């Protein structure tokens, strides 16, 4: 501790001396860059910066470079002749547009449904119902399971002949439906399963936010004559906005890369017609067809979409001074 203080004092003295101009130029140059806060803090930001820079940003840049080549099959990519031909092919590829459309539907419907159901569950649990903690665990449990496991569950439950979902709708005289086979139903079925798995997560985020709202506000709203609906709509839910924003960013980013669930449900890179998303198309082009450059092109598209999701969030956080 003593050492630190004496060191800080020395730094302080040197700075004072420098402002007086009483130090030789050589020492000033020698010391000045070492004294810069950015240099002094290097041990703290340096390692993560280098690791992230190498493993994330350099990888993204390399991926972009790959997407400009014509790399396919085995061997090494040829970087001497770069061009946007893969992007041109992609724009004309109907499979790409179909996958993009499905990705967008998945993203929007999944996120909105998770937010609404999560909010409803959180409000119910926040009302101090009996066995609230047990219910909370039950609702959160699906989120703790791996997608490979839940995908297998849903495959069984969606089975046309003896799946429980068809047994259930059969009780009211409907069906049987081919949930995972009918192109009109398949995306909805996948979204439903994902919402089941993720609404527990949104519930926990909302619940934490709800618990941080002082009880006085509920009472004040009551005393002012607000009914329950009005109280939540006007007083409580507006205060959940930050929780909603961060939860929706996480959900949307997940939706963009919802690969593992589809892979497990359809047992491969080619989902049923109607459920192909960009992530599965990217894997198929890369690892099925060895079209590495084209696969990288789709990856860059996904990356841009992710940026589209996260950039507004980062911007508002920056504006608020949270970054």
């Amino acid at each position, binding site marked *: 501790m003593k050492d630190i203080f004496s060191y800080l004092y020395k730094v302080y003295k040197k700075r004072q001396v420098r402002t007086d101009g009483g130090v030789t130029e050589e020492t000033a140059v020698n010391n000045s860059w070492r004294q810069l806060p950015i240099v002094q803090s290097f041990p703290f930001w340096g390692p993560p910066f280098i690791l992230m820079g190498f493993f994330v940003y350099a990888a993204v840049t390399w991926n972009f470079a790959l997407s400009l080549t014509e790399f396919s099959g*085995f061997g090494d990519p040829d970087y001497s002749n770069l061009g946007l031909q893969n992007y041109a092919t992609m724009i004309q590829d109907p499979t790409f547009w179909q996958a993009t459309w499905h990705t967008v539907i998945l993203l929007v419907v999944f996120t909105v449904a998770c937010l609404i159901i999560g909010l409803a569950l959180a409000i119910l649990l926040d009302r101090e119902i009996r066995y609230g903690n047990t219910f909370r665990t039950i609702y959160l449990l699906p989120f703790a399971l791996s997608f490979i496991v839940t995908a297998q569950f849903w495959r069984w439950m969606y089975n*046309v002949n003896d799946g429980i979902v068809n047994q259930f709708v059969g009780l009211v005289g409907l069906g049987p439906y081919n949930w995972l086979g009918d192109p009109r139903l398949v995306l909805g079925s996948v979204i439903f399963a994902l919402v089941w798995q993720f609404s527990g997560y949104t519930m926990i985020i909302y619940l934490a936010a709800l618990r941080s709202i002082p009880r006085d506000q509920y009472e004040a709203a009551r005393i002012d004559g607000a009914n329950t609906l009005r109280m939540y709509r006007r007083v409580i839910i507006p205060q959940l906005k930050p929780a909603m924003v961060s939860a929706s960013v996480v959900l949307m980013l997940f939706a963009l890369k919802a690969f593992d669930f589809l892979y497990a449900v359809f047992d491969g890179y080619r989902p049923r017609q109607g459920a192909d998303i960009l992530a599965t198309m990217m894997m198929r082009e890369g690892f099925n067809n060895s079209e590495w450059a084209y696969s990288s092109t789709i990856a860059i598209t996904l990356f841009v979409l992710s940026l589209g999701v996260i950039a507004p969030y980062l911007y508002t956080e920056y504006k608020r001074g949270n970054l």
Partner: protein
Amino acid sequence: MPLRRDIIKTAGATSLALALAGCAGDDGAGQEGSVEVLHGWTGGDGAEAAEAFFGGFADEFPDIDIDEQPIGGGGNQNLDQTVANRLQSNDPPGSFAGWPGANLERYDGVLGDVEEQVWDESDLASTHAEEAVEACQFNGGFAAVPIGSHRMNDLFYNVDVLDEAGVDPASITDIDALVDALEAVDSETDATPMAMSLASWAILQTWAVTMLGTQGHEAYMDFISGNGDEAAVRETFELLEEIFENYISPDATSADFTELNQNVMGGDAAFIHEGNWVAGAYINEGLEYGSDWDAIRFPGTEDMYGLHIDAFVYPADNPTPEGTAAFLRYAGSESGQIAFNQYKGSIPTRQGVATDEFNTYLTDTIEDFENASQKPPTLAHGLAVDQSTQSSLEDALNSHFADPFDVDAVTEEFMDIV
């Protein structure tokens, strides 16, 4: 007492030294290690066949150690991906199981040549069927050795269900007779007439055999060589549409063929068209060939043998060239082919192999193989077209012909792709 910093430094230096030593270790070894072989036979008859095959090798070559790596799942998808990753990162195994023929094109640049060491030394070219020899040739040499062949133009059926429906299988000699038989099963029994999975590779396989049966061998060969007749392609799709619309089960789009084959075994479905690996399931289940289940040729392909070949492929920069060559010579030998095929439910591509170890069904198939007038290469299993073409055809089927069925769109795409 050492400072914490010193301890950390020492630990860091030690682990770095160990890591460097680990890297150097590979190059330091002067002798060949064990021969690594990747394959996808992890369950049922495949696992049994692999056990007999690798066990046989260990008996014959006790000095060569085989590092067998079974990678199952996803209908060889996981295996193919592992192989691709290994080859991509210049870390090839000794050998891996894969389809020869046009499928080898995807490995262009990373395959080695075993013509001298394996084919010439064991005289495989004169002992194996000419189609298998041709399929293993690559870039002027040999990049693979065939291990066995499944028949791709069988139509299997449950004998009891056909009896109940009053259908005589011998009468099914053209596609109209097949449709009549399906209709009879549909009206006379509770069974599903045709067990059919609408997985894209299964549709592609069924399309190919229907084209062979209705349009003939020449039309099929023209199609796979890129000179397809649009009318022939369309008519094949129209026939399939009729069958798929009326005679397959409602879970066809989501069930895989093993589940559907269970229905044939249990008497809940009458016919199934698949590669003859389904017969392995019947035999494992203890069902009797001829009295419980039987097979006819898909109508119209009676004098053909739908050709499929499994092979062991030889990557370039082989880590164990000597050991792998010995292994491949064994794969092409009579003992290797018998050990593998009798359990796998496939037949040897080697000619004149003693058939005493094979069951009646396979003995019949071996005989048919030798007598077939034509052996059209399979479209859905890598022999006829390269991987990217096959994948595009499957994409087209998945988008336009996997319920609902759009004959115009899928015909147009098929004509464009090949």
